[in-house]
């Protein structure tokens, strides 16, 4: 989209790892500070979207292919629901994480982390898929305009 602006490209390249690290920090530090799967998912998706805005959606599609996204969206929900079923199999109530660890507190901790990963996966891939759907159409429109000319 903006292939000529070198300042933008360099700054984005510098920012991308910072955004991704921040997303992971928000994800795994959610137990202790503000944040969690939802916010981290949006931040991670924002990193890829930024890349897509500057380098074009097709470049972003090479980094995170659309097919993987479509598999990841239901995978997050499955991780979440599967954790609940796992605790059912271990003899507790649905979504009661206590039996997952060696003692209840560790189980709760592990359960919260797994569930947040599920939220992260679904949120980030959904946001990205919607962006691909819109941005891809914009790019398709550009291509077809060029073909018409």
């Amino acid at each position, binding site marked *: 989209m903006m292939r000529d602006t070198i300042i933008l490209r360099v700054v984005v390249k510098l920012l991308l790892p910072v955004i991704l690290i921040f997303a992971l920090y928000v994800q795994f530090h959610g137990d202790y500070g503000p944040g969690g799967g939802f916010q981290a998912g949006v931040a991670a998706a924002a990193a890829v979207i930024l890349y897509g805005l500057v380098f074009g959606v097709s470049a972003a599609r090479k980094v995170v292919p659309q097919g993987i996204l479509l598999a990841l969206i239901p995978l997050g929900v499955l991780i979440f629901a599967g954790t609940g079923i796992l605790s059912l199999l271990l003899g507790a109530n649905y979504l009661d994480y206590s039996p997952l660890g060696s003692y209840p507190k560790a189980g709760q901790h592990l359960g919260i982390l797994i569930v947040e990963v*599920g939220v992260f996966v679904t949120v980030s891939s959904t946001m990205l898929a919607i962006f691909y759907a819109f941005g891809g159409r914009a790019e398709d429109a550009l291509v077809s305009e060029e073909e018409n000319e």
Partner: protein
Amino acid sequence: MMIVAVYGIIRSRNLFVVVMLSGIYSFLMATVMVVLDAVDVAMTEAAVGAGMSTVLMLAVLGLVRSREAPLRHSPILPIIVCCLTGGMLIYGTVSLPPFGHIDNPQNQHVAPYYIENSVRETGSPNVVTAVLASYRGYDTLGETTVIFTGGIGVLVLLSGVMTRRRRFNNQKESDE
């Protein structure tokens, strides 16, 4: 400042300016949330309201014209509906209990239990995370499912439009 942003959104006919102003409005809203000590909500507002929706709006702006179309009908009925809804909402706040009071229903129900027991029972110092992921796990599961359903819905709608348009174009080409 939020009022200025809203006034700008209403007055401006340039949709790019409107998108940027609504992003600014979201950031101001996030600041309000920080002032109210709701850091998690502020983070969500900043990420989703200011970041994600602004980017999606810009992506859509790439597809449509960036000037607002002139009105084709009188704006009186929408104004009446808006004023009625706003008036009813303000009327509803009159009977709300005083802000932050200890005797309020939301401070008396399960909240004290969460605050007292969440660290002991879940080992998570952040009460918000403990409530979201552990005590109210069902609700968060439902929330994730809503995002899943919404995303799939949008994708189905958009891909449906695309295949139909492609078929239409192919048909036109074969007709020619």
